[in-house]
């Protein structure tokens, strides 16, 4: 019988198949994420984390479809640790977050729920691939662009302070290696012709200057939904800008009947009340641009979110100010959050401005934030 049995051990360290197919699964999950981006970016769990880096977003992994029974309509057999009584409650259906298509397979054994995870960073990466600052003008930069030295050349002459020691030594070794007579002492001698100097070029430091004016309506008419949507929008906008652009400023302006500048934290957390006068914030923005961000030097991007519930008498004034804003800006975003099918009078007024630099969006559903981001920043 002895020859029946073989015990062996192989080297499996190169066996990568599982990982390769796992990568493909991950790729496919990313495709799904792209499709569901609209839903994902307004997920409360993300917005509330304030973008902490290691946040994981639970994702349903790819399903393998087949003809199968409806789990919830089936009679199952189980096993108790004690005698069970008919009618005994074993558990409740677990309420899963949205996105769990169809039946919540809460306690089904062997069914995969939420096993692929995406990090906040993954999500941001995918999202930001598609976003950019539109009409960005490189020529706009401070008049005094400071020069930045770049050591990118090596020469035979230069200042002793800038000797490139490594190259000098190399030259010396090279020279002695080529020389006919072998130096018995084998000591490295540095002769003047070995010397190498680092040298630099001065380059103007091209940095594009851009400023975003985030304007939010904080009046009493802005309900939970409206606030949530505009904050989601600004949340991603801020993160996108900080990640992708080094030299971009963001100013936060809040308004009801009057406008004022607030800190970032206040902008995202504080609520106000009162009526709405949109012209106030447009005026504030224009003043700010005038004072601090001359359009000759700056790319200016005002973005305003409101429920569109403006005092009727203000609309004309708002429109003329908006016209000026559009003139001085690269792009202006105007977002209206409303859940009815009518658009506001302010929106219909602003629609008369035909300049393509004005980008108007209406958000009626939470998953439209994604589209709004793409409309403004593309």
């Amino acid at each position: 019988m002895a020859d029946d049995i073989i015990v062996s051990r192989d080297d499996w360290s190169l066996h990568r198949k599982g990982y390769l197919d796992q990568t493909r699964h991950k790729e496919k999950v990313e495709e799904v994420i792209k499709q569901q981006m609209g839903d994902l970016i307004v997920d409360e769990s993300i917005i509330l984390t304030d973008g902490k880096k290691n946040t994981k977003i639970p994702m349903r992994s790819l399903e393998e479809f087949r003809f199968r029974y409806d789990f919830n309509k089936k009679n199952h057999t189980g096993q108790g640790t004690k005698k069970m009584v008919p009618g005994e409650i074993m558990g409740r259906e677990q309420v899963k977050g949205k996105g769990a298509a169809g039946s919540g397979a809460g306690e089904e054994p062997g069914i995969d729920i939420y096993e692929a995870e995406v990090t906040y960073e993954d999500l941001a990466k995918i999202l930001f691939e598609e976003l950019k600052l539109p009409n960005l003008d490189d020529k706009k930069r401070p008049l005094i662009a400071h020069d930045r030295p770049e050591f990118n050349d090596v020469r035979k002459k230069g200042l002793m302070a800038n000797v490139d020691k490594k190259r000098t030594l190399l030259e010396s070794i090279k020279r002695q290696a080529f020389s006919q007579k072998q130096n018995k002492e084998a000591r490295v001698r540095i002769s003047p012709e070995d010397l190498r100097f680092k040298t630099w070029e001065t380059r103007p430091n091209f940095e594009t200057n851009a400023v975003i004016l985030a304007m939010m309506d904080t009046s009493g008419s802005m309900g939970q939904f409206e606030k949530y949507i505009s904050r989601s929008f600004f949340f991603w906008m801020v993160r996108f800008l900080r990640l992708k652009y080094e030299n971009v400023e963001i100013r936060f302006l809040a308004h009801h009947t009057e406008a004022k500048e607030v800190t970032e934290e206040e902008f995202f957390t504080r609520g106000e009340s009162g009526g709405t006068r949109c012209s106030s914030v447009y005026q504030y923005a224009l003043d700010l641009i005038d004072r601090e961000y001359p359009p000759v030097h700056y790319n200016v991007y005002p973005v305003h979110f409101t429920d569109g519930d403006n005092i009727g008498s203000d609309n004309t004034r708002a429109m003329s100010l908006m016209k000026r804003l559009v003139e001085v800006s690269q792009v202006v975003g105007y977002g209206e959050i409303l859940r009815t099918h009518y658009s506001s009078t302010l929106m219909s007024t602003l629609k008369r401005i035909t300049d393509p630099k004005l980008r108007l969006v209406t958000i009626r559903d939470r998953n439209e934030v994604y589209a709004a981001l793409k409309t403004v920043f593309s």
Partner: protein
Amino acid sequence: MDNEMRALSTIAQDIAQVARGMGLDFYPVNFEIVPAEALYTFGAYGMPVRFTHWSFGKAFYRMKTQYDLNLSRIYELVINTNPAYAFLLEGNRLIQNKLVIGHVYAHVDFFKNNRYFSRTPKDMIERMASHAEKIHEYELRYGREKVERTLDAVLAIQEHVDYRSHIGIHCKPVNEAKVNQPVKLGEGHTCLSDSCSGNSCSSNSCVGNSSIKGQSCVKPQMKNRKKRASIPYEDLWRDLLEDDHELALQPEYEDLLLYIMMFAPGLEDWQRDIVSIVREESLYFYPQIETKIINEGWATFWHARIMHELDLTEAESFDFAIMHSQVVQPSRMGLNPYYLGAKIWEYLAKVKPLDDLFELRETENDLSFIRNHLNRDLVEELNLFNFRKVGAQWQVSEIEWEKVRDNLVQQLVNGGHPSIVVLEGDYEGKGGLYLKHRHEGVDLDIVYLEKTLTLVQFLWGKSVSFETIVDTKKVIFECYNGLISRRQPS
């Protein structure tokens, strides 16, 4: 060979002797010690070498995560071939390996003797390796996307093949052999497998193999098939008319994959080959699915007995007791097949002579095993019960032993998969595929049904209709160009 391997080899031989002495009859076994990652790969793929698909990567990731988090642990994996292959987890302690080796021999005894495995190819490792190569070639030739899309669709319906046709002709009534081959292509029969070797073709994907013996196996005549593809169902109709009588005998074809492979109007040859590959692998795996309880029970029952025969130290006995109790741990939602199976075998060993047990392991599968041997004593001892969803809560519904047994039996029918049959391949004269779900009391998951239907439609090319019952009403789902509609026939 290092010391550990030498020791293991000696132990494996000792245990083999003990097992044979107790009456187990198994193929030679090659044991291999592998690291966890390799073992989990094999577990996810079902085989050391198999074609590439993201679903295996997903399974691998899940198994690996569970292992990393210490949630589950596979100690071994056995491949049903001759010789059999068994993979032992690197880092198993000696006592663990002893138990596992006993367990493995019992599995291999089951593979060798149980009639449901009588038709599984004993060289499946090589076959699957060659399938993997072929699919890789298709990827190079037709693009990964296309191959993946085809695989996605075929894998979605991989369960829908006629398993019974592969159990062995001696189990089937004589005339079934003919009915089972509803449509004949050309002369003789056609084997679409590239590995078809003519007269002695033993390929599982060989269409003729399942039912008609002694006929020559010819390669498909490409010209003929192309012609057929250009006039869909022309041939089908003629054959059906000629075989009118047989059609009446069995108007519902059970082998959906075979039907698609042979008659889907838009499939290219390489796609048909993928269908044939998946079908062959599905037929290989199915007996393992339908003998899960009885086979795991058998192996658990025997590893316990074999361990009692070995001279274990006190510490080893203690370790063994712990490990064995982990294996047979009851689970609350659902059933632990190791536990349930072992309990039934233990019960049978008490009331029957050993010879009877060996006979049962030859003839039964999970369904008959439960139906014939799960009795009142066992149901009560194991605290089995039925439960269902009432509102948002899961509630114990029945504890009467017959109801528990019958429910379990019902869940095992058809390997737990809904039974889907083909009624027509030219529905309403437009080349549509008409499928029917044999509703057996439980509705289907509609979300899944619709998604799967679009995949079937992708394979079929033309429209696909699907008849089922939803909330006691007959409903027909129709899929065309990936779009689903549903109607209720009056």
